[in-house]
C-alpha cells in the first residue's frame, strides 16, 4: 500500500491509531509514512508499548533508594544487595494470550519475563506466578486454570528456573478475562550489569536465538488490503513457547556478558525487531541501520512489514563491540543457537531498514520510542461505589468450626500444592523456604544472605476501594517478606485493569497508583518497574481492578529466616500488631453469603511499618519460632494454617471478649501477624514491641495434642482436630480438579 492509499483509506485506523496520532507522526516524520513505517509506529505507539494512558500517573510512584541500581525504564529493576551482588526483577502480564490458549499463553509469558531479567545480564533464579480465574465450578475456568498451570510448569521447569511462589484467586469477574502475571528474579555480580543500550557508533547489532516467523504480528496493527484474509490465515494468533531454545539463550547470553562481548542487550518482546532496535538506540541517543536480508527467517516470502513486527519468541538483540562479531557468533554456535549480524549502530538518530538493497523504512528513533502521546483520560468514580460499601446486618455464625472448614476449603484460601507441585521449585538448589510459606526464601550462593519474595493483590479489596486496596496490597507483600525476616528492598507491580477509556476504570487506575505510591513512600520501598495491562474486559464487564505487587526482600543471614508454621508444642502464641479486623470485603462474606461488599479497612501505615520492623528485628535476634501473616480468612484461618506443619501441632487459644465474634475470628485487616515464640523469649519480644509502639496480644500455647481450640470467656468457639482441618484444606483443590 502506498502512502497515498494509506491516506485515502485511513489505514492507520485499522492499526488502532487515532487520527490525531497519525497526524502527530506525520509531523514528526516530516512526511507521510509508508506501510512498513506505519506498522512500526502503530505497534510502538500502542497502549502496550507506549503506556499512553498510564504514563502520566505512574510518575507518582517513588522509584529511588540508596540501593536501587536500576529503576523503571529498563527491562527490569536492579537492587544492590551487597557483597558486589545485585538482584534484578520484574513482573509482566500475559492475560490476553491465556484466554485463547491457556498452555501456550502462559508458557510464552514465562519466557518473556525471563528474557527481561536476562537482558540485565542476570541469571534468572526464581519465578512467581499470580493467577486469577473465574469460578472453579465452571469447567471452562478449570480448563483455563489447569492449562495455565501446566504451561507455566512446562516452560519454567524446562528452562530450569524454579517457580517458588505466587498466588491464586477465583472470582467471577475473571471468568472471561483470566489473569496470568509472572514475576522473575535474577542475580548478577554488579560488574556484569548490562543496559539495553545501543551505544558506540559502528558497533554491531546481532540477533540471537529463534528464527523470525509470522508469529503474533499484531492484532492491534493488523489488517489492510495487502494483508488480505489469506495472509491473515497464515499468521498465527497464538505463539508456541520453546523453552529449550530459551535455556540455550540464557546460557549463551550469560556467557557473552561474562566474556565482555556485550555492549547492550535487549529482549525482543512485543514488536520484536522494531521495538528492540528503536528502544536500544533511543536510550543511547544513537541510530541504527539494519538489513532485513540478514535476518534468519522461518518462513519464505515474509515482507519487511512482517519481519519488523514479528513477535517470534526466544530471540535477543545483542549490541556487540565492532570486531567481536565472530566471537559472539562462535558462542552462539557452541550453544546450538543461530546468530546473525543484522546491522550496526549509527550516529544519525534514525532507524534505517534495508531490504533487498532498498531503504524500506527510515524513522527517527526518538519519535518511535518516545514520541507517542500521553493521555490524561477522564476519570470518575463508578456510580455504585458507595452502594458497594453497604453490608447488610448479618447473624453471628452458630458453628464457627464449620465456618472455619468452609473457609479452608474455599479455593482461594485452600492449600495450593496442587499448583506448586507441578512446578519445579527446587532446581538451582537455592530454595530454602519452599512454596507454602508467607514468602519464598532463596539463598544467595557464595554469601550468607537470602532473598525473599512474595506476590500479593486482592482484587476484591481494590474493587471495593481502589486506593485502600492498593495500600493493602503493598502492605501485604511487604509484610509477607518481613514475616520470614527479610527487609523489603523494592517492589515491582502489574496493574491489570479494564478499558482505560472508561472513566470509572481510569478512576480506579488512578486511585490504585495513588495508593501504591503512598504505601511505598510510607514503608520506604521503591518501585523499580512493572507492567500495565489494560483492556481486560469482556461484554460482561471489566476484571476487578487488580494490582499485583511483587516484593523482594533481603535477609542478611539465611539462618535468621522464620518459618510460618508452629515448630512444635510448648510455644507461646500471640497476635503481633493490630487487633482490629473487619468483615468488609472479606472471604467470610463471600463464602458464607456470596457477598462482595463493604469498604475495606484503611491501613495505618505507621503501625504497618512498625509491625514489619518488629518482625524483622525479632527474627534477627532469633526471638521468633514462627510468624504468619494474618490475611484472608482472618485470625482463625491463620491459626489453623500455623498448625499445619508436616507434623501437625495443636493450639489452645483464648480470645479477649472483643474478638469473640465473627469479625474477631474471620475478619481481615492489615498489620497483624500470628507469631509463636519460646516462653523465655517473651520479655525481649515484648520490649521490642514497646520500643516500636506495637501491640503483642498473648493468645495461648501450642500443644502436643493436634487440636485447634479457640475459646472466648467461657465459650468454646472452635474445637477441631487439626488433621481434619488440614484434610479439608489440602483436598479442596485436588478434588475440584479431579
Amino acid at each position, binding site marked *: 500500500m502506498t502512502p497515498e492509499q494509506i491516506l485515502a483509506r485511513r489505514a492507520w485506523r485499522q492499526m488502532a491509531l487515532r487520527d490525531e496520532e497519525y497526524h502527530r507522526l506525520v509531523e514528526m516524520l516530516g512526511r507521510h509514512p509508508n506501510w512498513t513505517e506505519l506498522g512500526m509506529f502503530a505497534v510502538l505507539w500502542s497502549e502496550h508499548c507506549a503506556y499512553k494512558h498510564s504514563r502520566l500517573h505512574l510518575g507518582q510512584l517513588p522509584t529511588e533508594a540508596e540501593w536501587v541500581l536500576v529503576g523503571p525504564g529498563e527491562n527490569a529493576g536492579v537492587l544492590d544487595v551487597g557483597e558486589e551482588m545485585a538482584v534484578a526483577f520484574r513482573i509482566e502480564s500475559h492475560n490476553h494470550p491465556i484466554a*485463547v*490458549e491457556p498452555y501456550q499463553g502462559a508458557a510464552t509469558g514465562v519466557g518473556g519475563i525471563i528474557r527481561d531479567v536476562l537482558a540485565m545480564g542476570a541469571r534468572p533464579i526464581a519465578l512467581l506466578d499470580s493467577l486469577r480465574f473465574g469460578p472453579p465450578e465452571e469447567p471452562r475456568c478449570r480448563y483455563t486454570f489447569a492449562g495455565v498451570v501446566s504451561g507455566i510448569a512446562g516452560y519454567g521447569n524446562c528452562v530450569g528456573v524454579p517457580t517458588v511462589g505466587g498466588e491464586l484467586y477465583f472470582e467471577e469477574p475473571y471468568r472471561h478475562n483470566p489473569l496470568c502475571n509472572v514475576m522473575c528474579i535474577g542475580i548478577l555480580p554488579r560488574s556484569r550489569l548490562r543496559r539495553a543500550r545501543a551505544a558506540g557508533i559502528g558497533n554491531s547489532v546481532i540477533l540471537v536465538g*529463534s528464527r523470525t*516467523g509470522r*508469529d503474533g504480528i499484531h492484532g492491534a496493527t493488523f489488517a489492510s488490503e495487502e494483508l488480505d484474509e489469506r495472509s491473515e490465515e*497464515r499468521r*498465527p494468533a497464538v505463539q*508456541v513457547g520453546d523453552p*529449550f531454545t530459551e535455556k540455550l539463550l540464557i546460557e549463551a547470553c550469560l556467557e557473552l556478558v561474562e566474556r565482555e562481548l556485550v555492549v547492550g542487550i535487549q529482549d525482543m518482546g512485543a514488536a520484536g525487531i522494531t521495538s528492540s532496535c528503536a528502544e536500544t538506540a533511543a536510550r543511547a541517543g544513537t541510530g541504527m541501520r539494519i538489513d532485513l536480508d540478514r535476518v534468519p527467517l522461518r518462513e519464505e516470502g515474509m515482507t519487511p512489514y512482517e519481519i519488523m513486527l514479528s513477535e517470534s519468541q526466544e530471540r535477543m538483540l545483542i549490541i556487540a563491540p565492532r570486531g567481536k562479531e565472530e566471537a559472539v557468533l562462535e558462542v552462539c554456535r557452541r550453544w546450538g543457537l543461530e546468530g546473525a549480524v543484522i546491522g550496526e549502530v549509527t550516529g544519525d538518530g534514525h532507524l534505517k531498514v534495508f531490504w533487498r538493497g532498498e531503504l524500506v523504512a527510515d524513522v527517527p528513533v526518538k519519535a518511535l520510542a518516545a514520541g507517542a502521546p500521553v493521555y490524561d483520560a477522564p476519570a470518575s468514580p463508578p456510580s455504585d461505589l458507595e452502594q458497594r460499601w453497604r453490608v447488610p446486618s448479618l447473624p453471628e455464625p452458630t458453628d464457627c468450626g464449620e465456618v472455619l472448614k468452609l473457609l479452608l476449603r474455599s479455593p482461594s484460601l485452600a492449600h495450593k500444592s496442587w499448583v506448586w507441585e507441578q512446578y519445579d521449585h527446587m532446581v538451582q538448589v537455592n530454595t530454602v523456604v519452599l512454596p507454602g510459606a508467607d514468602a519464598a526464601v532463596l539463598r544467595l550462593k557464595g554469601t550468607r544472605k537470602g532473598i525473599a519474595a512474595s506476590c500479593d493483590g486482592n482484587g476484591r479489596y481494590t474493587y471495593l476501594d481502589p486506593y485502600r486496596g492498593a495500600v493493602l496490597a503493598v502492605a501485604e507483600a511487604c509484610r509477607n517478606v518481613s514475616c520470614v525476616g527479610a527487609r523489603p528492598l523494592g517492589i515491582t507491580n502489574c496493574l491489570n485493569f479494564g478499558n482505560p477509556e472508561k472513566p470509572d476504570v481510569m478512576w480506579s487506575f488512578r486511585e490504585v497508583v495513588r495508593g501504591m505510591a503512598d504505601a511505598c513512600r510510607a514503608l520506604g520501598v521503591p518501585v523499580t518497574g512493572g507492567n500495565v495491562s489494560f483492556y481486560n474486559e469482556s461484554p460482561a464487564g471489566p476484571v476487578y481492578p487488580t494490582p499485583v505487587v511483587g516484593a523482594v526482600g533481603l535477609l542478611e543471614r539465611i539462618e535468621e529466616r522464620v518459618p510460618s508454621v508452629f515448630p512444635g508444642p510448648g510455644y507461646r502464641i500471640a497476635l503481633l500488631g493490630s487487633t482490629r479486623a473487619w468483615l468488609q470485603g472479606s472471604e467470610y462474606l463471600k463464602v458464607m453469603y456470596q457477598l462482595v461488599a463493604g469498604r475495606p479497612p484503611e491501613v495505618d501505615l505507621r503501625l504497618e511499618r512498625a509491625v514489619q520492623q518488629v518482625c524483622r528485628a525479632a527474627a534477627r535476634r532469633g526471638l521468633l519460632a514462627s510468624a504468619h501473616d494474618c490475611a484472608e480468612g482472618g485470625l482463625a484461618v491463620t491459626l489453623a494454617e500455623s498448625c499445619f506443619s508436616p507434623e501437625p501441632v495443636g493450639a489452645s487459644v483464648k480470645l479477649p471478649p472483643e474478638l469473640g465474634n465473627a469479625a474477631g475470628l474471620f475478619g481481615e485487616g492489615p498489620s497483624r501477624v500470628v507469631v509463636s515464640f519460646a516462653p523465655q523469649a517473651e520479655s525481649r519480644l515484648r520490649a521490642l514491641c514497646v520500643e516500636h509502639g506495637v501491640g503483642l496480644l498473648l493468645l495461648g500455647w501450642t500443644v502436643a495434642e493436634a487440636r485447634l481450640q479457640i475459646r472466648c470467656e467461657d465459650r468454646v468457639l472452635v474445637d477441631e482436630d487439626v488433621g481434619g482441618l488440614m484434610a479439608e484444606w489440602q483436598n479442596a483443590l485436588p478434588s475440584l480438579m479431579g
Partner: protein
Amino acid sequence: MRYMVRVLVKFKAGVADPQGRTILAALHSLGYEGVRDVRAGKLFELVVEGTDEDAVRSRVEEMCGRLLANPVLEDYEVSVLRALAGEGR
C-alpha cells in the same frame, strides 16, 4: 456399532514447531540429511459407538473442536478407520 476412529492434530501452518525442528536437527546429526522438514503432532485413536460412520465422524469432529484440539492453534483431521466387528450390539 463401534468404530475405530483416528484423529490427527497438528499445529496450523505458520505456527512455530520447536519439537519438529529439534527432531529434524537430531535426524540430521544422525546422518539422515535427506529429511527436509519434520512437523510434530498428536494422534488419538478412539473407539466410538454410533449408528453409522457419518454420525460418528461428525461427533468426533465436535470433540476435536471442544477438547482434542485448540482451533486457534491447531488443525485436526478425523478419519473413521473401520467398523469393529463382533464388538457392536
